[in-house]
């Protein structure tokens, strides 16, 4: 009996002693004081040691974009960090940053943990963009079963026109949503019922921010136009994986509601020049390409423009009349929609197939596909298929510009 008692006491004493010793060392060794952070040599911040740089910047209302939510995959939160306090780049960053960027001390803010004083440079536009501001919803309408167009009225003190290709960040507050309560227009109810999306539920405990490209035409000045695709889980896994937190919320907003947005940001822009421009889009990759094409045509460009756009069925094809009208107005613009899986009722007479196949078929007849500039925006699968096609056509990578939704 004494053996058991004493044994237990010895082990307990040992473990408690070791834990106390470790705690004492920990408080000695790991300093917990604040660290200093200089932003663009203008702002001087204090932050807790051991926190992520992205959280610090967001905490001080510096809206560094982070489309992936700080997981180190989108590469949008690039900042230049000098000073020992930032440590060495993580393995996650080495995959995203080029060797040249790494030599220039570029880091991903979401992967950088601060352990000492350092100096940070963020793009000036971001520093002056300030924090999110409230906009009111001017209109909202469904374009396709999963795509909703939302138009926000910009406040008077904000930029009323954007550079085509820019994106803004939208913050959804904490909310709860049962998709059965969503009111859908008649033509889209059937696909929702077949896919079972109405049975989804989603709840979000905190404010979440995501990036959305602007689809503004020149005549949309004063507003911000977004094409929001509801990020639905893969079929059959509706109960395990929640749908997109911000896109779900944006399906609930109605005209007159207030939405918090920040920006604009972006580096996906049309390059000046005279080369022919080929736009390839899929899904809501429509948004930035629509803005670019409208802006280019309204600016009176004489560059030849082709727009390849891929959708699954006719119901998923939107803004189609608009581009048909543009093609009639402008001889040097052509609109090439293609359906990968046209429904029997669609009476589709246009091209069918994946958009990279349509692109390849047309561009192999082109005199010099390598002389064109390519602007791609769409889901990652489409981007990689199109990149492979362009490589076969002999297009150099520096003539291809793309936005793969930060995936």
């Amino acid at each position: 009996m004494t053996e058991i008692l004493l044994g237990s006491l010895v082990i307990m004493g040992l473990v408690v002693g070791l834990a106390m010793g470790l705690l004492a060392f920990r408080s000695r060794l790991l300093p917990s004081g604040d660290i200093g952070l200089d932003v663009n040599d203008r702002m001087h911040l204090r932050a807790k040691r051991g926190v992520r740089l992205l959280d610090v910047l967001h905490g001080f209302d510096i809206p560094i974009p982070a489309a992936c939510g700080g997981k180190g995959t989108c590469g949008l939160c690039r900042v230049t960090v000098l000073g020992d306090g930032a440590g060495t780049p993580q393995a996650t960053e080495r995959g995203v940053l080029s060797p040249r960027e790494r030599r220039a001390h570029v880091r991903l803010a979401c992967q950088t943990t601060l352990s000492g004083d350092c100096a940070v440079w963020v793009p000036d536009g971001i520093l002056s963009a300030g924090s999110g501001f409230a906009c009111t919803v001017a209109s909202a309408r469904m374009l396709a079963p999963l795509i909703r167009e939302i138009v926000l009225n910009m406040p008077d003190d904000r930029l009323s026109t954007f550079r085509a290709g820019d994106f803004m960040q939208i913050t959804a507050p904490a909310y709860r949503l049962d998709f059965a309560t969503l009111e859908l227009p008649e033509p889209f109810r059937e696909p929702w019922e077949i896919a079972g999306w109405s049975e989804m539920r989603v709840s979000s405990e905190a404010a979440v921010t995501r990036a959305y490209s602007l689809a503004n035409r020149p005549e949309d000045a004063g507003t911000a136009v977004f094409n929001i695709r509801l990020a639905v889980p893969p079929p059959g896994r509706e109960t395990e994986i929640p749908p997109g937190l911000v896109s779900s919320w944006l399906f609930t907003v109605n005209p007159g509601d207030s939405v918090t947005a920040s920006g604009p940001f972006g580096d996906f822009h049309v390059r000046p020049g005279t080369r022919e421009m080929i736009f390839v889009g899929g899904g809501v990759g429509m948004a930035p390409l629509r803005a670019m094409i409208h802006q280019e045509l309204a600016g009176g460009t004489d560059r030849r423009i082709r727009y390849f756009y891929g959708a699954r069925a006719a119901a998923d094809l939107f803004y189609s009349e608009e581009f048909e009208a543009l093609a009639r107005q402008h001889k040097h613009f052509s609109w090439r929609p293609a359906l990968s899986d046209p429904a029997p009722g669609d009476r589709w007479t246009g091209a069918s197939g994946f958009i990279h196949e349509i692109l390849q078929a047309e561009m192999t007849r082109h005199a010099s596909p390598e002389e064109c500039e390519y602007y791609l925006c769409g889901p990652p699968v489409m981007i990689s298929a199109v990149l492979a096609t362009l490589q076969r056509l002999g297009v150099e990578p520096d003539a291809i510009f793309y936005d793969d939704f930060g995936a």
Partner: protein
Amino acid sequence: MTDLWSLFLSAAFVDNMPLTLFLGLCTFLALSKRPESALGLGIAMTGVLGVTVPLNWLIYRGLLAPGAWTWAGMPELDLSYLSLIAFIGVIAATVQLLEMLLDRFFPAVHASFGVFLPLLTVQCAILAGSLFMVDRSYGFSESVVFGLGSGLGFAVAVVMLGAIRGRLAYADLPAGLRGLGIAFILTGLMSLGFASFAQMAMSQ
């Protein structure tokens, strides 16, 4: 003094942990890809073994060994069945301490260890150091020398393997042997070499 010196030599070379006793091979192979990380592992092993073996000696002799409680009037009390759990606790705490020290003063070394530093907690060579110490009934000074010696032996072996593997980056190996395959062969050849130390010990 000469006894301690010969104990040190035999712990480092004759009874070399990875190459003669084949203990701690997982970290030995995993962290020997480059000489720098191998050196870091060697230093860490020497530090952990040098601290845990004497510390465990104190705990074993003072609390667990048969007869340790004679002063309290319980000469027949034997808590040595607790030695495994006590040793592992001490090793875990020491590794944690080492991790904090490295993080504070050598962040680059800390980053190169990655997950292998916490894994030292369950490194068989480290636990074996404490178990051999009990098994061979070393005294306190002997346990210090044994801990440091076997740690240093591990360091020498892993740095050597790291240096060879660094060189092999330029060798044209058959595809199937690249990486761990050639590392196993190298370990075998090196352990043959270390077997000659055992011959020297016997012929003395």
